[in-house]
């Protein structure tokens, strides 16, 4: 837009009335701009009949503004410039006769004659050059995009294969688990009676109680650790993020307190010379350390011992305990249980028992048969649990593959053609000022300080552009990606990213701006958004 000098043409009103009646009319409406036989004209909404001379007389007569297509006298209407030598365009009526030559109207028809010269030749050429460049870019981009789609198709095949293989694996593992479950159940039912008796032992009961309390304590402890970590994160963010210029003593105290507690050096201090040296800090820390009591485990030891302790198999312990204190039962229950079985059932029992023992020996769960090793149900359980693990992992593999498959051509994920699948896990970076911004597509976005230090999560992939009125799966839909629920700002929301895509031959982040506190806007290019030209043009035709 070129500002033009404010030379007002001293046109009398009558001269304005001489504006062509069809001036500014869109080609599709041209035929409606003809006078009636009585030299009148009816507003397009039919609301009013006016003199034909009142059309384009620079005075708004019609409620719908249709009588002033060429003067801008009616607000909220459109003006059509023919732009001979180029393509026609509409501009809002507010830009007609405002003294500025609109770039959209290269023929200069939006202003009074003589104000703007026609630039349609140049504009047309530039437009075509730009369009050609864009087409070229799109063409190249769409080829890459096609390769992404091909990748997705292959990926589909691969995933389907994975599903099939994992299905087989699941079935096999399921059979194993069933068999082992059966075995364990039998074993358990056999030993149950004796076990029940021993479980009456006060020692065993106390042990269970200890276990319960320890477990609760551990849970509680973990909760506190987590809270402490969160608080530490908040304080660390406060420490690095607060504005020292604000001079708010409460914040300064919090920061200093945290630095002291966490053994960090002062930052952002008003008086630089007050800053303590590293040695001073170090010595502080030493003083801080509490004297260790004997018999008290270190943190590391505790971390190691506690889970192990909690995983103890108390039933096995019970049995071992029996052995240790020399209870009369020196044989495993499994072998003695026959004495309790009614005679009539004995043959069947022995058959089952032998089968079981053979199986257990084969797997090395119990040793030998006659040497009286305890045929622990716990061992059977362990076998079952590892079989179950294998089953779960097979199931997981299957469901992952199924999920991947379902997302592959889901417009809410990798697109109807799966064109975005290729980019999953691709990480793009842009270094701006003191930070490098990174986004791993469909994963996590991060802000990493260039000088080292903790990086902040700017969020995880959340959704595409779901603004109201946008068609799911349309190019506009894919023009924005949202990453949400990143690290919370100490004085603001959780960090988030809006990633604005345009078609380009490279996958790249072009710019990063923090438009609102902790809400980032990335712009980037990707071939995934380069629709083939034919598709675009088809879309235009449909409109």
């Amino acid at each position: 837009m070129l500002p033009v000098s404010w030379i007002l043409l001293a046109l009398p009103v009558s001269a304005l009335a001489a504006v062509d009646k069809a001036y500014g009319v869109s080609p599709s409406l041209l035929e409606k701009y003809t006078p009636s036989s009585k030299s009148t004209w009816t507003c397009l909404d039919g609301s009013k009949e006016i003199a034909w001379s009142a059309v384009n007389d620079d005075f708004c007569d019609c409620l719908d503004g249709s009588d002033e297509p060429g003067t801008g006298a009616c607000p909220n209407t459109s003006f059509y410039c023919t732009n001979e030598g180029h393509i026609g365009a509409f501009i809002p009526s507010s830009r007609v006769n405002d003294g500025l030559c609109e770039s959209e109207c290269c023929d200069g028809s939006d202003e009074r004659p003589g104000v703007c010269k026609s630039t349609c030749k140049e504009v047309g050429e530039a437009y075509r050059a730009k369009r050609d460049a864009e087409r070229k870019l799109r063409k190249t981009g769409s080829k890459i995009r096609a390769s992404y789609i091909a990748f997705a198709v292959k990926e589909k095949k691969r995933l389907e294969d994975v599903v099939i293989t994992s299905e087989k694996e699941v079935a096999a593992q399921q059979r194993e688990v069933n068999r082992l479950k059966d075995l364990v159940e039998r074993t358990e039912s056999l030993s149950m009676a004796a076990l029940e008796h021993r479980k009456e032992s006060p020692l065993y009961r106390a042990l269970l109680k200890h276990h319960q309390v320890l477990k609760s304590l551990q849970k509680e402890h973990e909760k506190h650790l987590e809270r402490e970590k969160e608080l530490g994160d908040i304080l660390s963010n406060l420490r690095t993020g607060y504005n020292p210029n604000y001079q708010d003593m409460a914040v300064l105290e919090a920061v200093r307190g945290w630095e002291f507690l966490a053994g960090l050096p002062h930052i952002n201090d008003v008086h630089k010379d007050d800053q303590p040296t590293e040695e001073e800090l170090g010595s502080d820390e030493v003083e801080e350390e509490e004297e260790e009591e004997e018999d008290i485990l270190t943190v590391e030891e505790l971390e190691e011992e506690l889970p192990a302790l909690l995983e103890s198999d108390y039933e096995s312990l019970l049995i071992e305990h029996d052995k240790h204190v020399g209870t009369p039962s020196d044989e495993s229950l499994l072998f003695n249980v026959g004495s309790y079985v009614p005679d009539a059932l004995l043959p069947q029992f022995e058959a089952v028992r032998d089968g079981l023992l053979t199986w257990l020996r084969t797997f090395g769960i119990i040793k030998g048969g006659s040497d009286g090793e305890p045929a622990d149900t716990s061992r059977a359980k362990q076998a079952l649990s590892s079989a179950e693990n294998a089953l779960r992992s097979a199931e997981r593999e299957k469901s992952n593959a199924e999920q991947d498959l379902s997302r592959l051509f889901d417009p809410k994920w990798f697109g109807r053609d799966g064109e975005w699948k290729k980019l999953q896990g691709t990480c793009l970076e842009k270094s701006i000022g003191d930070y490098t911004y990174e986004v791993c597509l469909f994963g996590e976005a991060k802000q990493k300080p260039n000088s080292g230090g903790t990086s902040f999560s700017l969020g995880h992939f959340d959704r595409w552009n779901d603004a109201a009125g946008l068609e799911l799966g349309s190019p506009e839909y894919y023009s924005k990606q949202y990453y949400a629920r990143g690290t919370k700002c100490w004085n603001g929301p959780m960090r988030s990213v809006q990633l604005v895509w345009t078609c380009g031959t490279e996958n790249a982040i072009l710019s990063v701006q923090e438009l609102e506190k902790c809400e980032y806007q990335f712009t980037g290019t990707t071939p995934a958004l380069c629709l083939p030209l034919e598709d675009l043009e088809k879309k235009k035709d449909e409109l």
Partner: protein
Amino acid sequence: MRALSSLLLLAAAPLALAVKLEDFKTCDKAAFCRRGKAIAQRAGENPDWKSPYSVDPSSLAISSDQTSFTAAVKSSLYPEINFGLDVRVHKDGVVRVRMDEVNGKGKRYDEAASWALVAEPEISKDIRWTVGKKEVRATYGPKGNKVDVEIAFNPLVVTLSRNGRTEVALNSLGLMHMEHFRTKEEPQPTPEAVEGEESAQTVMEVPNPRSWFEGEEEDGYWEETWKSWTDSKPKGPQMLSMDISFPNHEHVYGIPQHATRLSLPTTSGEDSYYNEPYRLWNSDVFEYMADSTMSLYGSIPVMYAHSKESTVGIFNAIASDTFIDVAHPSAHSSYTHWISESGILDIFLLPGPKPADVFKQYTGLTGTQELPPHWSIAYHQCRWNYVSSDDVRTVQRRFDEENIPVDVFWLDIEYAEEHKYFIWDKKNFPDPVDMANDVSAVARKMVVIVDPHLKRVQSYPVYKEAQELDVLAKTKDGQSEYEGWCWSGSSAWVDFFNPASWEWWKGLFKTSQGSSDKCAWIESTTDVHIWNDMNEPAIFNGPEISMPRDNIHYGGWEHRDLHNLNGMLFSNQTSQAVRARTDPPMRPFVLTRSFFAGSQRFGAMWTGDNLGTWEHMAVGIKMVLSLNLAGFSFSGSDVGGFFGNPEPEMLVRWYHVGAFTPFFRAHAHIDTKRREPYLLDEPYKSIVRDILRLRYSMLPIWYTAFHESSVNGMPVVRPHFVVFPEDEAGFAIDDQYFVGSSGLLVKPVTEKGATEAQVYLADDQVYYDYFTSHAYRGAAKGRNVTVPAPLDRVPLLVRGGAVLPTRERPRRSSPLMRRDPFTLTVALDTAGAARGTLYLDDGESYGHAAGALVWREFTAARRGRATHVASADLAAAAAAHGQAPTANAGAGADVGVGTGAVVYDPQNAFADEVRAVRVEKLVVLGLERRPGTVTLGGAELEWEFVPGVASGAGKEGAAARLVVKNPVASIVGDWEIVIQ
């Protein structure tokens, strides 16, 4: 822009914020105020109280031309100390009373008036002083408005009365006290220096003859510690106390800036509304309260007293910390007590008698509102911060895509690298000149912030130059550079009291290097104007977030003496600098946060960091009205509230408030969500678009009101008592007001969920709804009417008798409307008459001072059965009466155009430029019947008539409406349309 801290401000949380009261002093935390209050306390408890001050009649000396007199004043407390009194009457009847200590041990600050006054006032030549035994007096003024000034000798009391009725009196309650300079008495080494009762008794053995007045103790005479700061007070006590009474006035207004009602609530006396005096000490108050006497960013020590009978005022030219108690001893009287930390007594009595007279008298002293560049009364879009030049371009593009008008895009502090003003942060603003040019391509402007704190690093050339020039503020030793903390971290402050800073400061804004080897802002353009913030000055680690009082300024004055002037000197120099960028000079736009009496000559102000609450929206209107009375018409509040995220309803209502405020800017804190109008959902977006278009269509009305204000000091927005000075029911109304002399009466909605509003109509007149032409009827004794106020409509009435010139074509920015045709709406009064004016000029140069302007008067009058609507040249008429059609004394004189002579040529260049601008539509409301003919020069015009209520019929309902199409070919010429 912002206050101290954004700490703990949760963007999404509802605003439950509060000011940190402990950061600011109350009267009992300031020794001088305690001492002043104690005098009032003792006086109240002593029925025999008599002021110790008296005039020595033998010393009375009347000047040879009779215009003024001087006299010696003595205090019975300190007979050895001499005070000098000087009283004079100005040409316009204003009385100036000055008193200072003579030949004392020190010198009180006496320069506040010289900064505040626009020029040395002319002394009246017609005054004759009559010396009596007990008093000296002068009587002047026309019959029926005889003003009598009396200075009683013992005790010294100054009284201004009219027709025998006391209008204002100084020291009538005997609270006047000027603490003289004294020598610090070092504590005597007493031989029995034992603590306890004994020594206390020793003191009591020597009775203090002055304790009845000054009290027993030397309360904080020589040093004062508050929080972690110690004020060294090397000059000792120099408090000034004065009671100013208005024994016949119920309402007092003025002394902005406080977040309170227009008619000042009481602060002392029984059942006072507040229990703390109003304070004037320019302060950066973080999250200020919406109802408080706390000082805010600026101070204008002018007060008006109003009653049905008269309006008078006082201007107390003092720039030190000042506390003011207000009380109403009886239902119809007002009493005020002013306690200042330092400075001479320099009080101007404004005799009135009408509101228009006191405004003329006050602005005669301190200057009228500078006529702003036209674009600056349009809509401003601001945010802390638009983060990059591309961000600015995107915001502009979005406005244009949505067809929402806007004139100015603003940049807050983040544009500057490390907050080193003038230095662009090139990471985000790599192309500042291109950015500014992209904005001005659509005839828009930019405003960029420049604060007074300079980052103390040698790599910052502006700081380095200031240091080399030695123009930085000094610590109490008068030698060392003062260092404080602000946005830029460790910073220094330019001392604008130092004349050596002025030319240098001007040079900083030049957009070309020229031959100077000093800094210039070559990475800027002349379409970039300036925002001055933090000029109280705000200093994060200073006492009360400002400078230590014992800091030393140019001339050896302590900061305490001139603190309240500091902000004004900054915007004064900046506006001169911006004006001087071009040759010929163009009108500058400078927004300031801190101000003093006279700041209206240098640009606009806003009410600082308000909160996004309904209470703040409501009090913002009252604050703007108060500022308008105090001469600073070009004022406004941040639309939407600086802090917080207003819900859409609140934001829409706030846009209505903004559209009817002289300075109209949306602004938001960095922690808030973006809220530019195009981001709103429907229907809010369209409503705000329409509000902005309404403001733009009414710019001719606003500009005409600004012109009137620049000529005669009338407020641009006027509360009820100004328009109806005798309607007592309207004296306290501060939520509805008139726009200039246009007849537009607006009552913005400031309540959630409202659907209608009660509007008070003060007179027996017809009022038309601006949007529907519905006629409402007022009554001679006042009447409330209910006006619909759905969210998309602000209650807006046109008083019968108005002619409104508007421009109805929406444009992207206001300069693009310059050749759009006008619509004239004639709102007939009950007698079938109307009058309105229109002032136009090029909106940006000083050509108006040389007569390049158009000033029209539109009238409607009934003659027989016909109504005549006519246009006449008001400028020519004014020139014929020897009056200048425009204010050309202020800036015009500064820049060497318009030397005060009456210059006006109807064929001036500007008139020629707009000759082709026509009147496209004439609307006449309230005609009695369908016209037979509507003619101009005998030729029939094209028109339509919708029957309805006639202006004089006394009925309510849709008014009769005549619309004449394309009646007049030129806004410039004289014409007369006859509606027969």
